[in-house]
């Protein structure tokens, strides 16, 4: 089973994501931004970082990278895609997920562990988590303040598409949104970093189940 991780210029959690994927038991595959090729990946992670220096707006330039063409196709045909942090920002810019991630309400970068509650387990990336489960997850971002218009927010809530909700909101996100999924539920965006808590040696492997979930999903589908 192959899980691809996109590498844009300025991505900096790509190596961590590749490591977590490997620990979960999949073959990690690097997807170079300039190649319009998913290299046979069964699932794709768009990792955190500062793609293209976050110039213009976080994610705004990355969405035009060559690798995004096949990635959008893949997502639209039901392939599991996870955007983490800057990856979440890229997916909103690419309109694979609704809403936008604004500057943190504190106007400061924030790096800390926050408590969050799992709200939806019917996605390829969260099926091994428990609904209502509380996790302590690391966040590290300057633009994580989720915003969407009222109608969109209502749709997200009505359709149970808020996947993860902060119990301690670090950035001013509306409805304490920490993660959402697209209408097809296969595309998930998370501001917290599951790849940073995928190893007991670092104090927690709560995030490893996110990657194990997608392995089970892909395995079940084949």
């Amino acid at each position: 089973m192959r899980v691809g991780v996109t590498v844009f210029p300025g991505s900096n959690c790509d190596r961590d994501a590749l490591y977590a994927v490997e620990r979960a038991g999949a073959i990690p595959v690097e997807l170079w931004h300039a190649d319009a090729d998913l290299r046979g990946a069964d699932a794709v992670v768009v990792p955190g970082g500062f793609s293209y220096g976050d110039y213009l707006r976080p994610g705004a330039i990355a969405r035009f990278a060559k690798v995004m063409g096949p990635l959008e196709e893949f997502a639209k045909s039901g392939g599991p895609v996870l955007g983490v942090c800057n990856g979440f920002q890229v997916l909103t810019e690419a309109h694979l997920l609704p809403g936008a991630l604004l500057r943190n309400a504190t106007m400061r970068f924030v790096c800390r562990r926050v408590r969050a509650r799992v709200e939806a387990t019917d996605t390829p990336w969260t099926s091994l988590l428990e609904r209502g489960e509380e996790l302590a997850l690391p966040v590290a971002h300057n633009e994580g303040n989720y915003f969407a218009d009222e109608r969109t927010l209502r749709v997200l809530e009505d359709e149970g598409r808020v996947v993860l909700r902060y119990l301690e909101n670090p950035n001013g996100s509306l409805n304490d949104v920490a993660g959402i999924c697209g209408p097809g539920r296969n595309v998930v965006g998370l501001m917290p970093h599951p790849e940073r808590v995928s190893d007991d040696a670092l104090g927690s492997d709560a995030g490893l189940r996110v990657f194990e979930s997608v392995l089970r999903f892909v395995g079940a589908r084949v």
Partner: protein
Amino acid sequence: MNIQETYSSLGLSDFEYDRILELMGRAPNYLELSLFSVMWSEHCGYKNSRPLLGRFPNEGPRVLQGPGENAGVVEVGDGWALAFKMESHNHPSAVEPYEGAATGVGGIIRDVLAMGARPVALLNSLRFGPLDDERSRYLFREVVRGIGGYGNAVGVPTVGGEVEFADAYSGNPLVNAMCVGLIRSDEVVRARAEMGEGNLVVLFGSKTGRDGIHGATFASDELTEESEEKRPSVQVGDPFAGKMLVECSLKLLERNLLVSLQDLGAAGIASSASEMAAKGGVGIELDAGKVPLREPGMEPWEIVISESQERMLAVVEPEKAALVLETAERYELVAAVVGRVTGHGEMRVLNGDEVIASIPAEYLADAPTYEREVVRPAYLEEAQRLDLEGIPPPEDYNAALLKMLAHPNLCSRRSVYEQYDHEVGADTVVRPGADAAVVRIKGTKLGFAVATDCRGRHCYLDQRGGGAAAVAEAYRNLSCVGAEPVAITDCLNFGSPEKPDAYYQLAECIEGMAEACEVFGTPVVSGNVSLYNETECGAIYPTPTVGMVGIFEDVSRRATPGFKREGDMVVVLGGVPRGRPEGHPFGGSSYLEIVHGKVAGRPMVPDLAAEKQAADLVRGMIRSGLVDTAQDLSGGGELVALAEMALAGGIGFVFTKEKIERFASDKHHLHRVLLGEKGASFLVTVPWERWDAFQNAIPGEIGWDQAGETGGDRFVVPGLIDLSLDDLRAAHERDLFERHAPEGGHVG
């Protein structure tokens, strides 16, 4: 401008100009003068500090590379090594704090990168004026933003550091950045490698612009009102390009395409090429016309000394040049062959066919050195004279403890380090807030710990003792997380060496540090000197910052400061033999500064043998699994250390009643025990089931005493203190960036 005005404006003295004339046998042109000016500046040439730096021990069993390269390198084990260095960016940060700090981070990353290492950890040591001053608040806020702005984007975790506030740093903040890189021992790259005549010099990274011209000269001068006008001398950082430069350089090395690699720092291509030439014993010809430029119309001299950021210089075999250029392009960087290695031993700058500068490289690398007389400053007598035994104990210990915990120099640093990504890389095992950061080496049981320490107040009051105390504190900090300290880097921040007081401080601090390094077996493997830290108001405290690196054979055997269980015994371990040391536990202490508003007295002179013995014992206990909770006793003494441990673990503490009763007849003794800074001491906790084993592990010559027991949700010293953890937390966890920051540091 006449010639004297010209060389003076470049920071060269009459003596130095005469020396240039003598060496060259002719008058240099403006570009040549500029090259001398930057290469002979204190920043590049160490002309005032070199004779003193020779005092430092540089060798040890784990040292693979000592001073003289871009960074020092020590061996860890299993074929792994660590490259590390610390560097100052004080002057740029004083006038342009965001970019000054950001480029400081970028620069130190490239130093480590030039050794071939992947940068894996950043730290920074910061000093500002008191927070009740608006300018200090601005500098502090922007420097922290700049460090985060660069470090977060470049993808290297900022795992630790320190910050302090005192009047002495008003207008002259200190910004010292440290980077640690990971490398295979047999892949260390050296700038002085055999470079080979005929090889090509390739410049890659960002384009070259007009930023940072004469930055090195600027950094080697005092700050004045006019310094603001030098804002254009401060470079602008681009962490995105920095990230690409890291990945590209590592890829070039991995593919074995480079003979030698050098970062571009102070004085740009000219200085890097001169250093390469001088160290390699070869000549280099650079063609200014081939350097990719950001803007048209730049003069050749501007091109070669520009400090535009995010550039590296490599020596490459001719047949590999095309591959190097191609790789750089893949990482969206600009690269060009800008010169070649020659046999003539000269640093030559060409503009097409025209030779516009030509200087034997050895002259550039041979800055004159100044040795000055070491004269004890007059202020010391007065500053040290204070009847410390006569300091009255606080009438209200509750209020005194809260005041100390809330003070900007002792309160939680959370509001600072939360602005830094300290986890990217997924290797940070102990995050900021402990005595030292701990980082693992993936795929092994190995890890390393790193901490920066400095005691400016102490060094102001006792130079030799303060220098030694800074090294001792770092040694304690690494030991009490369980790491074996192996080597240090340093950043020597001082006032003008041309003034006797500052020169004495520099010489004596170095002596103290060197003595401590010898006793601890932690040689100095890299470092940086920042002199002329003065404003119209005077010099800064002498501030030699120590960055110490230690290693773990098994990174899972470690300790942190937070209490872990209720009912643990808390023990003070170590201390110095009675009557031996000079000085007083209140001399230069945080308590004296914060509660009594005085920076005075003679601090305890470190007992280095006792320091080593206690620290080695604590480390051994952590390794053997006896102890998992430890903290050293430093600023604020026993009370503050205990309160911090309670807060970090979220578990209360009750001080041993018998101990209070024992001192009942001597209030002053209790006062000293609770609030003094006596050195060589640790606090550790021990669960009952390990109590016997713990006692048996303490050799007879090391003192220990019970301090109390963990438990509950209050912090209690019977008869003196009774506070809830919430009260302590409210004081300690204040946001240092809040608008109306209460009182900052004092100078008595």
